[in-house]
């Protein structure tokens, strides 16, 4: 799709992305983010002008670094108390959340 960088991000796009991220935005926020996202696309447009002929796609910012492994060795886990320390709601060692399935 040819991107002119102008008016690609509509109000609906912002609302869609916000919904995917479970964010609720008010009218002014939606408008502000629409402008910011549009700005990002403008910047990408600028980057497109760089000649990348013969350059491999970069999947990582440290291209020379590879094969970083850990051995399959146990390290201590957190205690249940520590694991749940910051949880806003908990019960019997579990994190407690609003029910996510309907009956």
């Amino acid at each position, binding site marked *: 799709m040819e991107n002119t960088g102008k008016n690609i991000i509509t109000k609906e796009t912002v609302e869609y992305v916000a919904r*995917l991220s*479970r964010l609720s935005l008010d009218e002014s926020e939606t408008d502000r983010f629409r402008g910011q996202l549009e700005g990002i696309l403008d910047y990408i447009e600028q980057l497109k002008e760089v000649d990348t002929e013969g350059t491999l796609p970069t999947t990582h910012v*440290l291209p020379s670094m590879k094969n970083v*492994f850990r*051995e399959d060795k*146990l390290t201590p886990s957190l205690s*249940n108390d520590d*694991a749940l320390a910051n949880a806003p709601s908990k019960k019997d060692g579990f994190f407690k959340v609003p029910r*996510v399935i309907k009956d």
Partner: protein
Amino acid sequence: MSSKYETVIGLEVHVQLDTETKVFCGCRNAFGAEPNTQVCPVCLGQPGVLPVLNKKAFEFAIKVAFALNCQVQKIIKFDRKNYYYPDLPKNYQISQYDMPIAYNGKLNVSDEAGKVREIGVTRAHLEEDAGKLIHDLSAPFSYVDLNRTGTPLLEIVSEPEIQSPEEAYHYLVTLKQIVKYLGVSDCNMEEGSLRCDANISLREEGAKELGVKVEIKNLNSFKAVRDSLLHEEERQEDLLDEGGTIKQETRLWNDSKNVTVSMRTKEGAQDYRYFPDPDLVPFEVEQETIREMKADIPELPEAKRKRFTKEYALDESDIEVLIAEKDTADFYEQVAAKAGDAKAACNWIKGEVMMHMNDRGTDIKGLGLDPENLARIIKMAVKGTISGLSAKEVLKANLETGEDPVKIVKEKSLEQVSDEGTLDEAVTKVIEGNERSVNDFKSGKENALSFLVGQVMKETRGKANPKLAGEMLRKKIAETR
């Protein structure tokens, strides 16, 4: 199925890899611990942590790749799959999008009649498992246990080439057998270490285009996979016959009602917004790793089946029983070699030994039977040192005490009596005490003799040589004529 449609099935199988620790952190990878006790900042998705790939999980995945005749990707990267659900603390799953570890494989699947068909394996990729949710049915809450989060998971995707629910079943049996042979997963469906989703569509016989597919979830056994596909095949066929159209959707299998039910579609389409995970650098599979992993693959079921057929004169069905589990097959080969009798070793293992395994709810390893000891018992039974009945008793005693079978025979004085003088008393007593059977035998009823032999066995507490007892009975009865 009527001949009007053909069925197209694809399977997605998730296998939990049996590493000591999780895929990106050092927490224990084990089922059944108290909730949220095998967690750390990495698998809890705390900010600022760095996941590092478990070498063992990577190697296990490569082993499976080779066993499934896959190509292994030269450069492997991990991607973030973004979605929001409480079982996923980071709000993304580390998975692999466009460069899976393995691709383009195949699996030879044979049906009950032994007919083999090749099913393509599209890809296999490594990812992390999510946590577990328990839903409160009396209150509007769900409870989250993140012990499972970060368990190494290998997703194996088949080509849509499976032609029937029955074949789907056999694909799973074959796949599970291979993965278990490799020793990379216990494939225990009850504990969720093997999970399966199925895709099914119908198309007019001979059509090129695939029909609209339905995904089935909540499949807790291979039987459920087959049954749900049979149900869905029929449902789609009826719908198409009535001129209806199939809706692309996810349906849940209800095991107790034997139906699939439409899962209420989530708001909006799935949009995972994959992108490369900057926390993980790319991986290049080194030649040495490839050599090591290939060398580490044991003889797989298909090759074993062929070799067993050639080396041991056994029935096909016996071979299937013996090679179903690698440990059983290995055990069999040791016993057969030590006992020097392949057929007897097979009969003992699929009979008595498996009976004891079932009784104790364990496998061959758990039974703790020394192949050397079983071989000794078999040799004594084949030679006639002990009767078949006594041999069973010796096995039972050996399983309880671990004592040398030869010693057990001595201690319980189970040696078979093959001496006429010693048996004479028992034979005479049986003839005197069973006049009716003796007369039956005299009047030509051959099977009356088996009864009398049985009585001699009883009289001698199973120690008599039944063949000799039979001969002596014949002789003595003839003399009294």
